[in-house]
């Protein structure tokens, strides 16, 4: 079996230790870091994302895979920094003000990182203004808002308005999600994209970033 495939398969099984050793081995074999990242780590994470979307694996498996990915990516980071590898886009994500549910938000973040996006995590209980300020300061192409409570969903509308007020609405896309959020709610508040799961969220974000570049 090719070593990149082996990396991908171990990552899917959450074997962080094996992934670390295999990535090191691949580096020693002079395989370019970009290729290890793309065809080993990110390929594995993609499969996990798809399986999660199709209810074939559950949250713990995704977390284990994400940990394995982070371990492998940490090894590659210095090598990638040397080359001209640029991230595919920049996103800031957070759970909205008044809401402390962050499990879904964290999964979205991991999947996005798994697609090679740079993600700034604002944590939970994030006021509308903070998303906008971060997007301006960090030059993010996308703002991602997560909410799990019907009572906190309206904050997402505030984020849209705050972006308009700050004059950045045409430069930044706003994605919304979380169990009670729907496509029609997304449209109603004037956000750009809603998806029902983390893997689709990451796919959509990559598309948005491509379009923005």
């Amino acid at each position: 079996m090719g070593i990149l495939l082996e990396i991908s398969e171990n990552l899917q099984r959450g074997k962080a230790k094996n992934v670390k050793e295999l990535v090191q081995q691949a580096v020693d074999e002079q395989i370019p870091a970009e290729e290890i990242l793309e065809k080993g780590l990110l390929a594995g994470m993609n499969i996990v994302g798809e399986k999660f979307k199709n209810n074939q694996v559950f949250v713990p498996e995704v977390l284990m895979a994400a940990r394995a990915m982070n371990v492998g990516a940490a090894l590659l980071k210095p090598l990638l920094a040397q080359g001209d590898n640029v991230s595919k886009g920049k996103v800031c994500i957070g759970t909205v003000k008044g809401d402390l549910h962050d499990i879904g938000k964290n999964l979205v973040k991991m999947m996005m990182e798994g697609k090679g996006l740079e993600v700034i995590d604002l944590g939970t209980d994030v006021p509308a203004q903070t998303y906008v300020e971060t997007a301006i300061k960090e030059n993010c192409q996308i703002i991602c808002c997560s909410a799990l409570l019907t009572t906190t969903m309206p904050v997402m509308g505030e984020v849209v308005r705050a972006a308009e007020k700050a004059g950045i609405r045409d430069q930044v896309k706003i994605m919304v999600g979380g169990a009670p959020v729907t496509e029609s709610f997304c449209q109603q508040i004037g956000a750009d994209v809603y998806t029902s799961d983390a893997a689709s969220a990451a796919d959509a974000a990559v598309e948005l970033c491509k379009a923005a570049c």
Partner: protein
Amino acid sequence: MTNRERFIKTLKCEPIGGQVPTFELVFFLTMEAFGKVHPSQRYYSQWNQMSYAEKSLHMNEMAQLYIDTAKKYGHSAIFVHPNPGDLEHIQWLLELIREKSGNEYFIMMHGDPTWGIPDGQTMMDFSIQMYEEPEKLNEESAKRVENALETARKLDERGHLLDGFALCSDYCFNVNPFFSEDAFDELIVPYLKEVIAEYRKMGYYSIKHTDGNIMPILKQMADCKPDAIHSLDPQGGVSLPEVRKIVGPDIALAGNVNCGLLQTGTDEECRTDVLRSLREGMENGRGYIFCTSNCAYTGLQLNRYEMMIEIWKEYGNYDRMKF
């Protein structure tokens, strides 16, 4: 028949006729309904400094609040959140409720030693342990089972005033369980089975609660033989008739009124949902407890809960089925 007797017969899946029993795992809305803080929301920082007389006033007031809640909404069971939660105060609270209401109500409290969905902070570590050191989690489970049984035993020796336990560890998100079938088999099933069997030997009933999409692990849960399965949340895609098919006729089913909808839906949507739940639940003529698909939680409008109860009064009667 007392409410307690009706509730117990329902847990045994015996036909009772008359009104379908109802209760709430927690009825948090006591401030709106009675002008009183819910016992679980109270923080008695100076409890130990209080005189016996003062403690007694607090304990009596909490006991009365539980009874008043049951009376006002026609509940057959009381779920207590003892506060303080040590054995001495649990016993005191139970004695007071029995003193004031005799054997009118079925009384239950928390008693689940099995693992539930971990919180956001510990989820990663817990997942790693699940895969890399399941035996450590299982060692811990064995200890937790022993502690739960120890409490049950002591309450049994002190007069067995408690009727049963609600096993409240949540296993499922709305989309899927947290535990895969294999993980559930390895980490949960042996301990759930044991604790329920031991509770039963001591004469306690077990109501297993978990919200979310329980369908992938439902059979495994049912095989642990709880007396009832609680919450059956439509937000997690759970349907009463589907559950009935899988668990058979001898485990009682409780819940299923969409509590998310109660908060966000229109009156008409809620009414339709409550009626659907009653119709599907009463279909078997036994083994059904009417309640929300979680609890009457903080933030729910009281009038919505009261509307749900009004519909239950009108339609939730086996002797005059209106469906």
